[in-house]
């Protein structure tokens, strides 16, 4: 719906133009993951990628992060071509990705230690960002002493320590129970509010998309194409039971159901 013209792309936080990704391109096992993705993310915008599992939405996140290269198409971030990973685009993973051999503050300031920031400055930064995610007490703890939700908050703090312009989140709350997940969504919105970073958030969870997004980008089943883009222009925190959002939920559910059905049919024809 809110499709901006392609040429505006250079100024936005992230712009993907005609991006496709084929795994093992040129070989027998070639597999199309993404086809012709055009996507703009405005600075400060919260965009949710919604789609069935295995539709390539995580792949798009990896491409934007610079961890993988698109087979064709161009990705820009803040007017610069994405040509590899950079600290200004932080990726937060689904599974816990904290280093078990470092304690919490060392994990949070890991990125700073890579460029030789002195210990005292690192501690200070870690203290600040841990305060922002409400984990000041966990400063000296080890990752295995924390709950799943706390670990993901540390992961967010670690990303924030790099002062990213774009936060890329790959189903970060998928492994958490429902109550923790809802809490984490509220917490993420608070952090986003303060940091002014643009967020690209991948999920297959409709309620999560509705609770968080400025715009929901719905993906088709593999190979991933953009099926629909829906704007949600409502203040947060949102009441998911309000009529407008219920209607949206119905719409997203039917959009997604078609794709899940298609994915299933494809899997069955393969087996």
């Amino acid at each position: 719906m809110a499709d901006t013209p392609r040429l505006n792309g250079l100024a936005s936080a992230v712009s993907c133009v005609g991006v496709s990704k084929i795994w093992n391109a040129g070989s027998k096992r070639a597999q199309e993951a993404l086809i012709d993705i055009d996507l703009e993310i405005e600075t400060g915008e919260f965009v949710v990628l919604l789609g069935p599992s295995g539709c390539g939405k995580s792949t798009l996140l990896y491409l934007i992060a610079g961890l993988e290269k698109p087979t064709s198409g161009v990705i820009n971030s803040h007017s610069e071509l994405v040509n590899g990973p950079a600290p200004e685009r932080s990726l937060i993973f689904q599974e816990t990705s904290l280093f078990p051999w470092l304690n919490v503050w060392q994990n949070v300031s890991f990125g700073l230690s890579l460029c030789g920031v002195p210990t005292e400055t690192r501690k200070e930064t870690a203290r600040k960002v841990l305060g922002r995610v409400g984990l000041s007490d966990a400063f000296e703890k080890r990752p295995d002493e924390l709950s799943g939700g706390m670990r993901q908050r540390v992961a967010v703090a670690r990303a924030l320590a790099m002062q990213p312009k774009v936060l890329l989140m790959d189903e970060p709350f998928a492994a958490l129970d429902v109550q923790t997940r809802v809490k984490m969504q509220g917490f993420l919105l608070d952090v986003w509010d303060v940091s002014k970073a643009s967020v690209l958030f991948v999920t297959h969870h409709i309620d999560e998309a509705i609770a968080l997004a400025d715009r929901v980008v719905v993906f088709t089943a593999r190979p991933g194409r953009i099926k629909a883009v829906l704007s949600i222009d409502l203040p947060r925190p949102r009441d998911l039971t309000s009529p407008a959002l219920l209607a949206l939920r119905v719409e997203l559910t039917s959009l997604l159901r078609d794709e899940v059905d298609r994915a299933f049919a494809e899997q069955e024809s393969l087996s």
Partner: protein
Amino acid sequence: MTVRSAKNGGDPKVADGPDFAASLFGQTFEFIGQHGPKLGWGLLSVGLFAGLWELLWYVGLVDQRLLPPPHIFLGDFAGQAKNFNTAKRWEIGVDPNSGPTPEMAVIITMASSTLRVLAGLAIAAITSLCMGILIRYHGVIGKLVLPMVTLLAPVSPVAWLPVAIFLFGIGNGPAIFMVFIALFFTMTLATITQIDSVNRNYINVARTMGASKRQIYTRVILPAILPGLLVVLRLNLFAAWMVVLVAEAIGVGYGLGQIISMARNTFNPGLVYLTMVIIGLLGFTFDFGLRLLQRRVLFWIPKGQGGLGSG
């Protein structure tokens, strides 16, 4: 060590009757309380085996000349210790009766075998770690070296024995070389496997934070593979002990392998079993030490996840 092995040798008397077993349990009860039931089970395991042996001997099912039971070969410790001669009596101008006392000679023999194992193990661990990392770090080096490593990995250490003697002659050199060569190839391959199985997320996190390739190796891959490598080291420790005996049996002045070899040549079964007990205790102590090291170095691994566990 020697004293303890002699004391453990008291175990076999378990077979003598329930009284002794009861007093044995009484004595060890405090110890068990401190070190957990594991130690108790360990003693029971040894006691059961020794007891069975003693029983078979008692009823006359085993030949004392071939399979002397523990109380005989351990009881004759003082006599057998005389075989542990570390004096260089074959050298010209050395008094045949010179040299350390038998007990001292036992300790020297044990220490020299132990040091050979330690030296070989340390050299192999460090070089294989460097080699594994080098193979994965530099593509070209990997392509050049890996096929050769894979080719040599299955070659039995015994086949290297003549090479060891060609290269290092007689003495500590060939024994240490044998331990090294027995471990180096497999441990290099193990290092590569460990590197390949590092959680991709760890590496991707570092990459998105702007880590260089070198930083990824030193700051992420190295700590991530350490737990697995220590398990590999523990497994190879036993291999090191096996190989050092083979090497010592041939062409090293003295060592536990030489004692076994001599015991075979002089038909002295008691000495064979005594040496086996010593080797077993040394190997066990080593493994225990490595486990302590594992717990120290790998403080971040929750208990029971350190590979082989703590059993």
